[in-house]
């Protein structure tokens, strides 16, 4: 039965090559856009090394301080002192790490300027994240305490500064400071904002110690590793309690603090939904919105295809009449047409999949997003397949239903 349907579908698609081509074009293009979006999403929020413990990690990304009358507020990254005092001391956590937002730093190699992304971290950073070291190892909390000028660099930096040779033990200069290389790690894509950098150095090597000043905001973020996944909500609640007890250096300027200890996906959801703090999990609503937008996006080509499909089936009114005359029920015909359309969509989806692979590869190679290595893993593939099937059903059901209701007497009266 299915074989007959497939045979028929194939013949029909070949009969009107122009319209088949146009349909495939539209389908594959839509799917390319969706698949690339899905891939970007997955690469930003999915669990990739070195973030292997994302299921029990929270982050402090942004904080907000408000004035007594709520008229003015400062919103941004927290200062080192704030995090050190209020986050490092949170109870019931396994480990806390503080790190800076990466900044550009210039070095000179044989007179030519080289710009690198520099990130300042504590020793605990390497204990929470799981970097794979190509050479050497990380620096420790003791290095941070002793203000040792050591650095971990990525593969590209090693190639830039030391050609192909090993780097551990050698020195490099960046932003006017000298560091000894203790470890080399693979390149991390910029999308992985928590671990990303070209060069990692201890926080205490900062040029001035203004980071230890009284100001509550600055350039720092925190990572909190919980003992187990179930603790996450509790930790956030504790953080809220702590925020209520913050001591403000100038209470006339700011006397209220707001923030969340959250996962990256939580943060993304909150920002997307334009929410300041979350009651229910924003992630579910964020995903619901994304699916809604995806369906909305698919609606345009779908409705266009519906018109083409209706015409295509209408041209077969003689066939519809014959099949009905010989015992096909309306439902059977709907099934036949839906199978035909799903087949067309799968072909379009296949093309789209291959194209999106190419597009992702292209994006990676242009360096638009530094160190992005977009691959297509099974998650993205399954997502793509689901989208394709959904698309095929969506654009096939209505025309199939409409044409299957054709009265056989009317259908047979048409061209023979």
């Amino acid at each position, binding site marked *: 039965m299915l074989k007959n349907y497939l045979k028929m579908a194939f013949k029909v698609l070949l009969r009107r090559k122009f319209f088949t081509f146009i349909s495939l*074009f539209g389908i594959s293009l839509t799917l390319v856009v969706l698949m690339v979006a899905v891939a970007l999403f997955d690469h930003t929020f999915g669990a990739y090394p070195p973030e292997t413990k994302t299921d029990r990690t929270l982050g402090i990304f942004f904080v907000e301080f408000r004035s007594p009358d709520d008229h003015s507020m400062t919103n941004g990254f927290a200062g080192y002192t704030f995090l050190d005092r209020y986050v490092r001391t949170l109870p019931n956590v396994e480990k806390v790490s503080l790190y800076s937002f990466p900044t550009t730093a210039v070095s*000179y190699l044989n*007179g030519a300027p080289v710009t690198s992304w520099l990130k300042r971290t504590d020793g605990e950073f390497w204990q929470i994240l799981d970097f794979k070291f190509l050479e050497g190892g990380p620096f420790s909390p003791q290095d941070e305490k002793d203000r040792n000028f050591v650095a971990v660099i990525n593969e590209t930096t090693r190639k830039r500064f030391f050609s192909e040779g090993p780097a551990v033990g050698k020195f490099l200069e960046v932003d006017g400071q000298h560091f000894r290389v203790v470890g080399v790690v693979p390149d991390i894509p910029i999308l992985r904002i928590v671990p990303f950098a070209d060069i990692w150095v201890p926080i205490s090597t900062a040029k001035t110690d203004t980071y230890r000043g009284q100001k509550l905001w600055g*350039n720092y973020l925190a990572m909190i590793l919980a003992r187990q996944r179930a603790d996450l909500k509790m930790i956030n609640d504790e953080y809220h309690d702590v925020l209520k007890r913050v001591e403000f250096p100038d209470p006339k300027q700011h006397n209220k603090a707001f923030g969340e200890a959250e996962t990256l996906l939580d943060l993304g959801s909150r920002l997307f939904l334009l929410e300041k703090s979350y009651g229910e999990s924003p992630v579910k609503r964020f995903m619901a919105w994304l699916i809604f937008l995806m369906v909305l996006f698919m609606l345009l*080509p779908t409705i266009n295809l519906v018109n083409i499909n209706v015409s295509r089936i209408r041209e077969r009114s003689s066939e519809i009449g014959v099949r009905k005359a010989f015992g096909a029920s309306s439902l059977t015909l709907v099934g036949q047409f839906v199978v035909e359309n799903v087949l067309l969509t799968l072909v379009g989806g296949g093309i789209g999949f291959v194209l999106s692979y190419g597009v992702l590869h292209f994006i990676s190679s242009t360096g638009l997003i530094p160190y992005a290595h977009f691959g297509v893993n099974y998650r993205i593939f399954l997502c793509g397949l689901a989208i394709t099937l959904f698309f095929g059903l969506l654009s096939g059901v209505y025309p199939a239903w409409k044409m299957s209701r054709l009265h056989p007497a009317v259908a047979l009266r048409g061209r*023979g």
Partner: protein
Amino acid sequence: MTKHLLTLVWNRRRANALVVLEIFISFLVLFAAVTLGAYYADNYRRPLGYSYENVWDISVGSLMEMISGDSAAEDKKNITKRLLAALREFPEIEASAGMDNPLFSIGTSNNNYYHQGRKTLASFCAVTDGFQDVMRLELVRGRWFEAADDALDWDPVIINQRLANELFGSEDPLGKNIGNPEEKRQARVVGIITEYRENGELFEPENYVVARRKLTGVSDDAMLHIVIRVRPGTTAAFEETVMTRLLATARGTSFEIKPLAQVRASFMRVCMAPLLAIGVVAAFLMIMVSLGLVGVVWQSVTQRTTEIGLRRALGGTATAIHAQVLGELVVITSVGLLLGTALVAQLPLLGVMTFVGTRVFLVGLGTSLALIYLLTLLCGLYPSMLASKIQPAEALHYE
């Protein structure tokens, strides 16, 4: 004929409604892309007013430090004076000066300026003496800033020709006050330059006032940027030398040195990015529109094979059939474009997109309309060919 086509389209309004909507939306996006492109292109051909070749921009203090105010106040005392003095020692550096606003970026500072009851807005920036030598500005009349200006009890400013025309007409601006009449300390015009387009070639020319910064030795005179003109042939290796000297002069600060040509290139990439993005969306929408148009027209043809065969049997030529099919499409497209144009025409009335100017606006409008009509004709070609091939006997053959 037209009325007949309108009737045909109206009778199938449900199927056509979606395509009309698609054309409407894609026209809007296309219009945005084309107009923005035309705006950039139109601005690009006008003179910049300064020369950026062989000029390097030095950012004093990293962006993060500026935001978080991390650099020590102690270190900022006299900083600009000290840095400029240090730079003056290099023979490779022809000229150097401090400036407040970076070139080739989006930000701008502006202020109102007055003369004889007229008030006009102008962008402004503060610079130190010798700025004209670094940037090779062109003086039309008057003079540049000089060290003696430190003793004045009014603020000398240099304005561009555009502002001179707008505020003074044919009157001579030199020596006149242009500050707020209610202020005690006034800004007075000492010179007129041809042009100074701080944001680069992609943005439209505007009124400009160059103000003078006195280096008084207090920390709040620290300037965010220093620009230096290096002798032609200076290699990039010199950058390291400069950097070392700068770091030695102001220990707690970070610096970033970039040839102005590079800053300009990155900035243009950033400006082009939204254009590219809108362009990609427009292209995608156009493809969807094609899909829609082809679907609609094929539907119309298959529903009316009998009618078409009949027309042929009654003496209609293939060309007439082509014309009917394409005519229907053109009517559908025109409805969508009419709605789109009606909306777009409201924009200048609402004050949106006024920055592009009338001429660019009309060019953008015309080009977008033309492109969509072209697309429509292309989409209709194949189905209309199919329609014209319908043989009367075949179409009428039933019973």
